[in-house]
C-alpha cells in the first residue's frame, strides 16, 4: 500500500509540474485556458489522493473547491472574457518558446536541488511534494514574467496559487479555514481582475500590458 500511495502521489504532483511546463508554451488563449483547467483538475486529484492517504477528510473539501472553482468556474469565466474582449485569436510570447522551456526545466531542477536537502528530516513523500510544489510556483512566476497579455498573466498567477495549495496539502496540517479563505480570495481576485480587464479595455482598447507602459510615457 505504501509503495502504491507514494507512486500515485508522485505521479499526480509530477503531472502537475508537467502541465505547468505545458502552460509555458501555449500561444493561443483558448488552449491556455483549457490547459489551465486541466492543471486545476490534476490539482484536485492530487489533493484528494493526499486526503485519502493521510486520512484527512477536510482535504476532500479542498479538492472539491479546487475542482469547482479552478477547474470549472474560473476557466469558463475567463473563456467568456476572452470571447467578449475578442482577443481569442491573439498570439503572444515575449521570450521565445525554446529558451522559456529550457529556463523552466532549469527552475524545476533548481527547486529539487533546494528542497531535497532542506527537508531532509521529512518523509520522502513530503519531500517530493514540496519540491514539485516549489517548481509549480516558480513556473507560475516565470509565466507571469514572460507573458504580455493580462489574461495569461492571470493564468500564471492562478497556477502559482495551485502550487501553494499543493504544498499546503502535502505539508499535513493546514486548517480548513485557511484553505477556504484562500480559495475565496482567489475567486475575489478573479472578479477584481476581471473588472479591471474590462475597464482597461474600455480605456485603451487593448489588454496588452505594453500599451499601458506606452501610455505612462516611459517607453516609445
Amino acid at each position, binding site marked *: 500500500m505504501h509503495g502504491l500511495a507514494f507512486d500515485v502521489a508522485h505521479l499526480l504532483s509530477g503531472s502537475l509540474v508537467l502541465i505547468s511546463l505545458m502552460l509555458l508554451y501555449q500561444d493561443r488563449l483558448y488552449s491556455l485556458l483549457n490547459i489551465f483547467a486541466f492543471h486545476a483538475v490534476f490539482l484536485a486529484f492530487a489533493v484528494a489522493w493526499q486526503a485519502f492517504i493521510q486520512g484527512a477528510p477536510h482535504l476532500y473539501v479542498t479538492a472539491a473547491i479546487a475542482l469547482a472553482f479552478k477547474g470549472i468556474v474560473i476557466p469558463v469565466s475567463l473563456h467568456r472574457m476572452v470571447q467578449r474582449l475578442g482577443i481569442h485569436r491573439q498570439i503572444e510570447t515575449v521570450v521565445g518558446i525554446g529558451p522559456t522551456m529550457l529556463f523552466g526545466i532549469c*527552475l524545476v531542477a*533548481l*527547486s529539487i*536541488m*533546494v528542497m531535497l*536537502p*532542506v527537508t531532509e528530516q521529512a518523509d520522502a513523500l513530503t519531500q517530493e511534494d514540496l519540491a514539485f510544489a516549489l517548481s509549480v510556483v*516558480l513556473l507560475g*512566476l*516565470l509565466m*507571469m*514574467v514572460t507573458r*504580455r497579455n493580462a489574461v495569461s498573466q492571470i493564468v500564471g498567477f492562478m497556477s502559482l496559487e495551485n502550487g501553494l495549495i499543493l504544498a499546503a496539502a502535502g505539508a499535513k496540517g493546514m486548517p480548513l479555514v485557511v484553505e477556504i479563505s484562500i480559495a475565496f480570495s482567489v475567486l475575489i481576485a478573479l472578479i477584481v481582475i476581471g473588472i479591471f480587464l474590462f475597464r482597461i479595455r474600455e480605456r485603451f482598447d487593448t489588454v496588452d*500590458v*505594453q500599451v*499601458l*507602459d506606452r501610455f*505612462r510615457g*516611459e*517607453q516609445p
Partner: protein
Amino acid sequence: MVLSVLLRAMAAMALTGVAVIPVCRRHGTGPWVYGTVLAACSIAFAAALGHLLAGAAPLTLTLPLGIPWLGAHFRLDALSAFFVMVVNLGGAAASLYAIGYGRHESEPHRILPFYPGFLAAMNLVVLADDAFVFLFAWELMSLSSWALVMAHHRAEGTARAGYIYLVMAGFGTLCLLLAFGLLAGSEGAYTFDAMRAGALPVSLQTLVLVLVLLGAGSKAGIVPLHVWLPLAHPAAPSHVSALMSGVMTKVAVYGLIRIVFTLAGPPAWWWAVIVLIIGGATAVLGVLYALMQNDLKRLLAYSTVENIGIIYIGLGLALAFQANGLAVGAALALTSALYHVLNHSLFKSLLFFGAGAVLSATGERNMEHLGGLIHPMPVSAATFLVGCAAISALPPLNGFVSEWLTFQAILISPDLPQWGLKFLVPAVGAALALSAALAAACFVRAFGITFLGRPRTPRAVAAAEIDRSSRGAMVVLAVLCILAGVLPGLVVDALSGVVRELTQGSSLPAQSGLPWLSLIPLSEARSSYNGLILLVFLTFTSTLIALSVRRLASHEVRRAPAWDCGFPDASPTTQYSAGSFAQPIRRVFGHVAFRAVERVEMPEPGSLQPARLHVHLRDLIWDTIFAPIQKVVAFTTEHLNGLQFLTIRSYLALVFGVLILLLSGLALWP
C-alpha cells in the same frame, strides 16, 4: 533626593517647553520662559554642585517609563554631577542672557518651545543609566538643537547647515546605537550596571572605541567629522549657539568619557594613540580654520573645534597612563581635560554672548564691517576681552590653568613604557603649543578687528550697548573665568571626586590647604602655579607702568608733521582688516592646509577701478572626504531613481530574479 530634584527640574523644563506652545507667538512670553528655565537650571546646578562637593555616593533611580520590562534608569555619580553642573551653568547663563537678548528675536515661536527641551535633553543624557534613556535623550538633544538651528530657516545657508547637521547627527546616533549594541551583548543587557560588569573581547572593545569616536566625536566636532559644526552653530540664535558650542559639545565629551572610561573595560595603550592623534589634528586644524574666518560666530565655532582637540589630548593622555597603570599621570591628565571642559563652557559661552551682542547692536557678523565697538559697547568689549584672553590661555585666567595642567601631563610622558607613545606625546605637545599660539593670534584678531580701530561701516557707528540682563550674564561669566583662573586649587579639589571615580581611587593631592592658593599637581620640585600672585603682580606692574608713563612723560605740547603711519588715507576702510591680519598665517600654512591661492588683479593704467586681491581657500577635508561621499550618494540615487518607473512585468521579473538568485544560493551553499 538630589537625583529626584534634578529629574523634577528637567521635567519642569520639558513641561515649560510644551506649555509655551499655545502662547509662544505672543509678545512678552520669552522672559517668562527664560526666567523659568533660569530657575530650574540654577536649582539643578546647586544640587549637582552640592552632590559633587559633598563627595556623596552614587544615587540611582528607576522610573517606570520607556521600554516596559526595562524602565528608565538614572544615576548621579561624580562624573554625572560634574557634567550636570557644566550643563546647567551654561544653561543658566544662556537663559539670563536670553531674557534680554530674546526681545530682539523676530520669530520667538520657533525658539521658545525647543529651548527648554534642548536643555532638559542634555541633562538627561548626562543622568542616563541605560542605553535606551541615553540614546533617547541624545536624539532629543540633536533634534531640538536642529530645530533651534533652523529657527531662521530663510537666512542664507541655514537650510544647508540644518541638512548637514541632521545627516551628521543621524550618523552619530547610529554609531552610538551600534556601540551600545556591542556593549549590551547578545543577552541585551542595556543597563549601564550590566555593561560595567560585563567583559568584552579586545576586538569588540576596539570596535566600540571606534564607534564611540565616530558617534560622540561627530557631535563634539573632531576632525574630520567637524564639518557640520561651523555651519550649524553660527546659524542658531546667539544664546543657542553658546549652548551648542559651550555645552552640547561637552555632553558629547561626556559620552566619550562615560563609554570609554567606565563601560568599555580596561583600555589598551594604543587607544591613546588614536585619541591623541585625533586630538592633535583637531586642535591645530580647528584653530587654522578659525584664523581664516571673517564671520565672528563661525570663527568661534571653529575655535570650539580646537578646544575639543585640547580636551581630547587630555583624555588621550589619561588613556595612555591608565593603560600602563600610572594612576597619578592618569589623574593629572583627566583633571586637565575636565578642567578644560569647565573652562571652555565658560569662555565660549561668554564669547558667543559677546558675538550676539555685536550682532544685535549692528546686525553684522562679518568682522570686516565692524570696528571701534569698544566705545559704544564698553561692557561687552571688556567681557569679550576677558573671554579672548582666557581662550588664548593667558595667565592668570582659567584657560591657562587647564592647558598648563595638560602640559604637565605631557611632561611626565617619558614615564610611559611604549616607545610609540614616548615619541607621539611630545609631538602632540608641540601641536598643542602651536594651536595655543595660533589661538592667541586668532583672538587678538577677533577682538582687535571687531572692537578696536575705527568703525568700518555706518552700522558699526550706530551700535549701542545691549540690555542689562545680557550684560549681567556676560559679567557673571567673565568673573567666573577670572575666579577659575585665580583659584585653581578649589576647582582641582572639586574635580578630585570625579577623577577618583574614573581612575579607581587615585587623584591629585588636595590643593586647598596649600599656602597662597598655589597649585602643585605633582610635587613642588617639579612645578607649581599660583594665579593669585600672578594676578597681584600683573595688577601691580601695570599700575606702576601706567603711573610712571603718566609721571615721566613730557606734558609739553609738541607739533610734528601729520602722522600717517598706517593711516595714509582718512577712510576707515583703509585700516588693517581681518583679511590682512590673517595673511601672514595664510602664507605660512595656507598652501598646505587650504590650497590657498592669492591673485592680485591690477587695473589697467588709466583705469579708475581699484586693485583687488582675490583669495581662494579650499576645505580639503570637505573635498577629500565628504564631496566624494556626496557624489557617490548622488550617483546611486540618480540611478536607482529609474527603479520607480519600471513596468509591472519588470518589477515581477526583478522579484523573480532575486528569488532565483537566493534559491540558487541556498542550493549551492546549504
